[in-house]
Structures are given as structure tokens and as C-alpha cells.
């Protein structure tokens, strides 16, 4: 593994990034050049389902959104560990299957505990 192998292996990724940047910015630039610009107050107000916006956007969000984000992080990390597991599953066999069952079981305990505590129940009662 030389240094050149790295650049060669990730050259396609670099090209994709460059092309996507060019496409994105050229779209913005061309539309800026050819569109007419006639702003007025009503046009510049943020769109809020067609009704006039009532309050400042910097309000406090409900903690329920944060909880969903936290659960997403937990299961994202779990999925990450399935990648190396899936690659070596054939090599290790039943032992790896048992390990992954136990790993997911530990997480499912927490998940069902959270469901039992009505964490995902969004209705007001």
C-alpha cells in the first residue's frame, strides 16, 4: 500500500464531489443571472403553510424531537457494527450469530423499556 494507491482509489470519489459542486453552483449561478428580481415584503416573508407567520422562529422545541434524535443515534451505531459482522459472518459462523443476537437483545431491552415508559407516545394525556 503506497501513497499513490490512496489517491487512485479515491479519485472517483473526488471527481463525483467536484462534479456535484459544479452542477449545484452552476444551477444557482445561471438562475441568478437569468431570473428577474422584483422583491417585495410579502414575497420575502418565510412561507408558513400559506398563513401569515405569527411568532419568532427561535422558539423552544419540544424535548420529544430530541428523544427521537437520541434513539436514532443509538440504532445508527448499532447498524454500523452490523457491517463488519456481515463481512465476517461466514468465517466465524454460529458464534458470530450468537454474539449479534445478544448485542441486539441488550439494545432491544432498552427499546422495549422506553416503549413501556410511553416515550414515543406523542398524544397529550
Amino acid at each position: 500500500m503506497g501513497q499513490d494507491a490512496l489517491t487512485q482509489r479515491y479519485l472517483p470519489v473526488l471527481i463525483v464531489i467536484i462534479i456535484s459542486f459544479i452542477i449545484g453552483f452552476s444551477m444557482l449561478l445561471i438562475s441568478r443571472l437569468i431570473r428577474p428580481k422584483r422583491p417585495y415584503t410579502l414575497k420575502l416573508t418565510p412561507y408558513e403553510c400559506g398563513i401569515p407567520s405569527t411568532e419568532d422562529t427561535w422558539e423552544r422545541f419540544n424535548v420529544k424531537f430530541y428523544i427521537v434524535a437520541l434513539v436514532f443515534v443509538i440504532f445508527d451505531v448499532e447498524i454500523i457494527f452490523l457491517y463488519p459482522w456481515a463481512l465476517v459472518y461466514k468465517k466465524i459462523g454460529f458464534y458470530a450469530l450468537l454474539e449479534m443476537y445478544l448485542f441486539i437483545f441488550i439494545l432491544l431491552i432498552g427499546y422495549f423499556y422506553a416503549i413501556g415508559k410511553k416515550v414515543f407516545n406523542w398524544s397529550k394525556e
Partner: protein
Amino acid sequence: MIYLIFAYFCASMIGITLMALTRKNPVHSVLWLLLLFLHIAVLYLFLNAEFLAVVQVIVYAGAILVMFLFTVFLLGAKELPKGKRYTDLPEGKALIGLSLTGVFIGAFSSITTAWKGKYTIEYIEKIGNTKALGVMLFNEYPLAVFLLGIILLIPMIAVAVIAWRAK
């Protein structure tokens, strides 16, 4: 060529960090942080840690940043207290500086490269980065996998506690 790319990433990471720190709008800071995380992923590629780079993109840029964003929303960032923080005090600054120095000394004195042992660079190159990690993790360190499950269980319980307190 590779040194040029490396130099670009190092310089831009410092610049991006400064941008993230100096933004007035916390949501803009989070977006600069997203760019920083993507640059860190490339830094992992320089270390031949391809799996770690993918984890950096999927977990950090994908999931943890969403959590940062929701934290900003949850705080209602305009309401942040303007009073003195412990980082403004000279004692606080000294404490942070000293503890960071301690961490750096600890990290740099315990650096080991993978030239020796069973998992040499050639071996990892042969069977692939992610596969090498999988073999090591599920063959030799099954206890670590269970500990990981328990570590991930703790935030799940925290979720239940937050929801219980919110009611």
C-alpha cells in the same frame, strides 16, 4: 500530490473550526461542524482507516450532528444566559488548558503503530479494513461487543428518564 491534499485538509480544518467557533448563529455553527466532520473523515482515509472514515460520515455527520441541531433547538439558542461562565474565569481557563495538555501528553506517549503483532498493515491490506476489524472484534473481543451493547443501553434509559421528566 498526496502531501498537497493533506496540507489542504489540515489548513481547511483549522479554518472551518474557527468559522464554527465564531458564528453568531448556532445553526450556522452546526453546519460548519458538518463540514469539519467530513474533512475529519478524509483524515481517517489518510490513516488507511476506511471503516472509521465511513463511521465518521454515517454516525457523526449523519446522526450525532442531528442531535447537536436538536440540542440547539431545545435550548432555544436566543435564550442562552449571558452571565459569566466557568470558562471565563482564569481558574477555568487554566484547568481546561492543563487537562488538555494532560490528554495530549497521554495520547502522544502511548502511540503504537501496527508494524508488529498479528494484524500487520500487509494483513489488513490483504483481507480488507472492515473485515479485519470484524474478525478481531467478533473473534477476540466478544466481551467488548457486549460492553458496547450495555453502553448503548445507558442512553436508552436516559431517553426514558428525559421523557418521564418532561411529563
